[in-house]
């Protein structure tokens, strides 16, 4: 993949990038990867009902972008939200219980895998509409002068929805300080992007005058740096910004069939950002991190399996 950086960034100065230790990046990415893998296994064991959309392979983006956010900052994600949620909240237990439909879940079992809310983290499962909603959130924060950062994650597939373009128009027109992050994993469900989208992804926000940067598959550090520049732009110019990251998901769209060519998947796996992140840290540290994470996840599974399901009281609206 070539670099398709569309625009040079007119910044007066680069921000002082707070250094995030490699261990932290790895721990967060490994947490997401293990969670998603265990989740698919639980489905195949019949322990979970419904559907889910795993983000294995895309952890670098979730971790790299959200590393810039604090608890007052706001994330709006989509159906493929586990990575974003775990990067934001570290709430393995609440997320797992929610997906397993228990009362102890983040939303009491009512939202499930795709409809999550806790603190300042929101998701919804209908594509497109999250973009105006997130933009409205950003507008509200701007009106309140709270200084909160707002980021919305969409995929390449969502770019089929018209309301996103309506929102690009308004975000640019009204100078709404929001970060749009497009995770281009080259497939919309089962359909390759070339059958979904005409033109170039990055040209779309650009057409409305939104500053856009399009990155090839990168490491978590590069995502982190790219996002830093995006936030600088947003905070300096009080205008929206769009980051487009090329990436790949290793799992199927949800739990169904994956007809993508095996060689293609293998090629992407060879460039797994998680492995790249692992190589940044000492093997013993890595082993310790992995052990801790896996124990935690196993424990969460046991706890959630024992937790109660909600009863009729929960739907006495």
């Amino acid at each position, binding site marked *: 993949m070539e670099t398709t950086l569309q625009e040079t960034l007119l910044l007066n100065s680069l921000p002082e990038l707070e250094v995030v230790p490699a261990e932290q990046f790895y721990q967060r990415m490994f947490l997401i990867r293990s969670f998603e893998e265990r989740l698919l296994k639980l489905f195949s064991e019949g322990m979970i009902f419904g559907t889910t959309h795993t983000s294995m392979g895309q952890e670098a983006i979730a971790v790299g972008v959200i590393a810039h956010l604090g608890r007052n900052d706001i994330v709006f994600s989509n159906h493929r939200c586990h990575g974003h949620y775990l990067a934001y909240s570290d709430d393995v237990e609440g997320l797992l219980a929610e997906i397993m439909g228990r009362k102890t879940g*983040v*939303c*009491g079992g*009512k*939202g499930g895998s795709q*409809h999550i*809310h*806790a603190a300042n983290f*929101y998701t*919804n499962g*209908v594509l*497109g*509409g999250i*973009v*105006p*909603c*997130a*933009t*409205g*959130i*950003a*507008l*509200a*924060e701007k*009106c*309140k002068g709270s200084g909160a950062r707002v980021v919305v994650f969409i995929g390449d597939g969502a770019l089929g929805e*018209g*309301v996103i373009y*309506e*929102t690009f*128009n*308004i975000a640019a*027109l*009204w100078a709404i300080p929001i970060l749009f992050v497009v995770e281009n994993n080259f497939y919309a469900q089962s359909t390759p992007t070339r059958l979904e989208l005409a033109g170039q992804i990055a040209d779309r926000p650009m057409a409305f005058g939104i500053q856009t940067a399009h990155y090839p598959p990168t490491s978590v550090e590069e995502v982190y740096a790219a996002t830093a520049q995006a936030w600088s732009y947003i905070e300096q110019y009080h205008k929206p910004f769009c980051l487009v990251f090329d990436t790949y998901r290793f799992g199927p769209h949800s739990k169904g069939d994956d007809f993508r060519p095996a060689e293609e998947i293998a090629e992407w796996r060879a460039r797994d950002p998680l492995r790249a992140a692992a190589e940044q840290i000492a093997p013993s540290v890595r082993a310790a991190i992995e052990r801790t994470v896996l124990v935690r996840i196993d424990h969460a599974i046991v706890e959630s399996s024992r937790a109660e399901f909600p009863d009729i009281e*929960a739907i006495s*609206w």
Partner: protein
Amino acid sequence: MISNRSERCAHVLNHALHHLFENHPDVYLLGEDILDPYGGAFKVSTGLSSRWPERVLTTPISEAAITGIAIGMALRGLRPIVEIMFGDFITLCADPIINYATKFRQMYDDQVRCPIVIRTPMGGRRGYGPTHSQSMERLFLSVSGLTILAPSRLHDLGGALIHATLHGEEPTLFVENKVMYGEIHTPPQDGRIGLFACREFGAAPLQTIALSLTEFEYSDVTLLCYGGMAPIALQAAEELLIEHEISCEVIVPCRIKPFSLEGLGEALERSGRLVVVEEGPLTGGWAAEVAARVQEQLWARLRGPIRRIAARDGIIPSTRVLEDLVLPGKQALITSITSMLRGGSVLTA
């Protein structure tokens, strides 16, 4: 807030908006063509943008996006009002209303509120044609988590809008009848409106108003309707009494969803007969839902089947002559009620 002068309903709503903006810094208005001097397609938003330019946002023609944006604003504690220029365009707002605004509270386990108000004019009788004359509030009757207010010129219009904006627990669809905009606001004065005695049920400013020409002493039929149909129902009730000696009590709710049968029980005690009228089409409309609930809950008071009067199936044609045939008018109500009580053939909608 009740106006003391004779004011047109559009002005009453405009005053309420001014009151909201004056006293509540978190109220915003988003809509198309709402900037002064135009002040909105029906002039309901006049004067706001001049006084509060940073909170009155004129939008591109993007109903879905502006609704979604307003929803995001509401999630974060602001009080946005969205003006959708014609109620017919509410179809474009369906996804944000149905899959976002009204679902957040329930699917997020009661952690958030989304107090958005979507104001829009509905209704025909202005010759605007098929896509600018519809009554579409009925399409949202089954959306859980949505409140629909459709006040008539008899209700506390301003109070209802203020209540919805400041105290609405749920997202609110606020339906304003187009013909009502130009009519004089006629709330009850000392328990009367013109020749009609009035009773009110439920809490102000969203109360249901019942009207009777015979002091609620007796009644042959109870006529239930809302919004723009209310003045027509009152005209029909007057003519029914004068020409046909048929006493018709008219009941007009302000809030059409969630449903409430307040006032109906006592009215049906007197008349035993119910006619429900709406400007929207017959099938699957508000009248159908009300009729089902009344027969479930008030069966013992009914002496006969409930009758519905609604618009004819099909488009609302632009030409006046056809529009008057399609939309239920005073004559349709009179014919239907006289045939109901005197025998004869049914007037099919």
